[in-house]
């Protein structure tokens, strides 16, 4: 059974239909990369998965369970999220950012949580910065803490919303490196990113979203080499040029 399934999902803000009849599925261990122009509904699609946004039509299933029928906090415990602007808790250290969910949501003791946090900060390579506050970290370090925060909850799936687009170019690599390692470890990921090198080498599927519709979806090589739609070629071509 697929880990995540979108079934004819639609979402409107007022008169504006932001997602139109979106269907796709994702198996455990898959890395799905979503690309699309600004305003095409990529963030909205991600936020529907953990119900930061509620859909109007259709259904989303996590491991066969309708997410709409789940308790939203229980759902979010199983679906991690990494944000473009990091959204680290400004008043907590790197370690504190990771422990909050562990103590408050998973009910770990302060000590267990600290141990687990250290372990995950180590894994993303910011163990030395455990005591630092977000304002004292570089963008790349912040985002790696953001990933550790999501990862430490031991989620079934992690959502990445343009995790590298707020970073200085020289810091992008360290974050992509961590994501690559996660993919190698079999983490299921749904990532909005315009890093085409990453999509090419890591993604199991690439989805091109435009105006809230899936224009085309398939293995990245196929979309790059022989897309069915000219629009896909045009868009991906533009991205690749941009990032060369």
């Amino acid at each position, binding site marked *: 059974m697929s880990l995540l399934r979108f079934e004819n999902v639609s979402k409107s803000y007022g008169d504006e239909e932001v997602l139109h009849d979106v269907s796709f599925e994702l198996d455990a261990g898959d890395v799905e990369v979503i690309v699309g122009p600004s305003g095409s509904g990529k963030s909205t699609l991600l936020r529907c998965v*953990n119900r*930061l946004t509620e859909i109007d039509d259709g259904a989303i299933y996590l491991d066969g369970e309708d997410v709409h029928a789940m308790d939203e*906090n*229980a759902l*979010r*415990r199983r679906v*991690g*999220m990494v*944000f473009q*602007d990091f*959204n*680290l*808790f*400004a*008043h907590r250290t790197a370690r504190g950012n990771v422990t*909050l*969910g562990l103590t*408050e*949501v998973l009910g770990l003791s302060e000590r267990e949580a600290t141990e687990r946090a250290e372990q995950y900060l180590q894994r993303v390579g910011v163990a030395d910065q455990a005591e630092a*506050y*977000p*304002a*004292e970290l570089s963008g790349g370090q912040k985002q790696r803490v953001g990933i550790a*925060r*999501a990862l430490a*909850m031991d989620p079934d799936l992690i959502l990445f919303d343009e995790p590298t687009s707020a970073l200085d170019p020289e810091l992008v690599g360290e974050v992509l490196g961590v994501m690559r390692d996660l993919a190698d470890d079999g983490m299921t990921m749904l990532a909005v990113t315009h890093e085409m090198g990453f999509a090419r080498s890591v993604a199991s599927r690439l989805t091109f979203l435009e105006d809230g519709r899936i224009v085309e979806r398939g293995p990245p090589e196929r979309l790059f080499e022989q897309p069915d739609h000219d629009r896909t070629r045009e868009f991906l071509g533009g991205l690749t040029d941009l990032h060369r």
Partner: protein
Amino acid sequence: MSVDETEPAAVGELPGRRRLTVLAVGVVFWAWLLARWAYHNAVLDRVFGALGAPDLLRSEVPVRNREPWLPPEPFASAADAVASLGLPEVATGWLVWLLDLVAFAIESAPALAEGAYVTVYLTVASMLLGLVVAVPLSVARVYGGTALSWLSLAYTELIRGTPLLAQLFLLYYGLPLAGAIDSVDLVGSGSVPGAAVFVAIVGFTINSSAYQSEYIRSALQSVDEDQLVAARSVGLSKWAGIRHVVLPQGLRYAIPGWTNEFVYLIKYSALAAFITVSELFGRADIIASDTFRTTDIYVIVAVFYLALVLTTALAMERVSTAVAIPGVGQHEGDR
């Protein structure tokens, strides 16, 4: 800010030597005040008694009869001496007045110390209780549904829109509150103050909670909304997110506003005198009617208020530094 570069913005920013002077004066003032409070403290007196320590404290002396620790006479005689020199009034008048004032200040100081004691615990208690009320009020205002936020708004506007003195009068004379408090055996016996003090604390708590909640509300609103989104994305409930993420940041942003309110309340607490509480202003009033030296006593009591206000500002500066977190509160907070 358009403050002149050479003008220090706060006592804490004074250059070295002047800062030291202010601190030294503060230390002497507080050492004296604390010693004075201890000297007439009934509980401490009893503890000393029980321990078999020498009977040093004088808690039984009524406030009016308390003796100053410095003799006022030298200043009074110096004033007389200067006056008897027969120099023109314009040349020496101010010196005579000042020396007389010092003598008068020394005589009134023990009673004013007692009044300051009441002022301090009245304000501190009301600020802290007010904070306990203000936090849920402001959270309700920002994060409550329509009904809760409307209730919170109605409360703050009602309280902020009516005079504090009217609120105190209503509580003290209009409602059976004082009687109810009085019927508790402990009230007014031994070292427990009378009902009026409790009514004043209730009144100030209600009043300051409304103002505090306005400061905290605007501080909460200055916390980036994405902070709560991030908390929720980890699986925290809305209330857990508010408690663990929004409040710790928002309350830090609120410190400058909260300090303002604290300083206001120190001064507004003088209104407690109108419902018979002998706090600082009340004591000054009693002395004024005993001596008819109205202007002089108000000048002296103003110095006491100034000392309390400056102390609060400095202490809150310390608190603000102590709880400071890099990246939190340096921007929006410093309005």
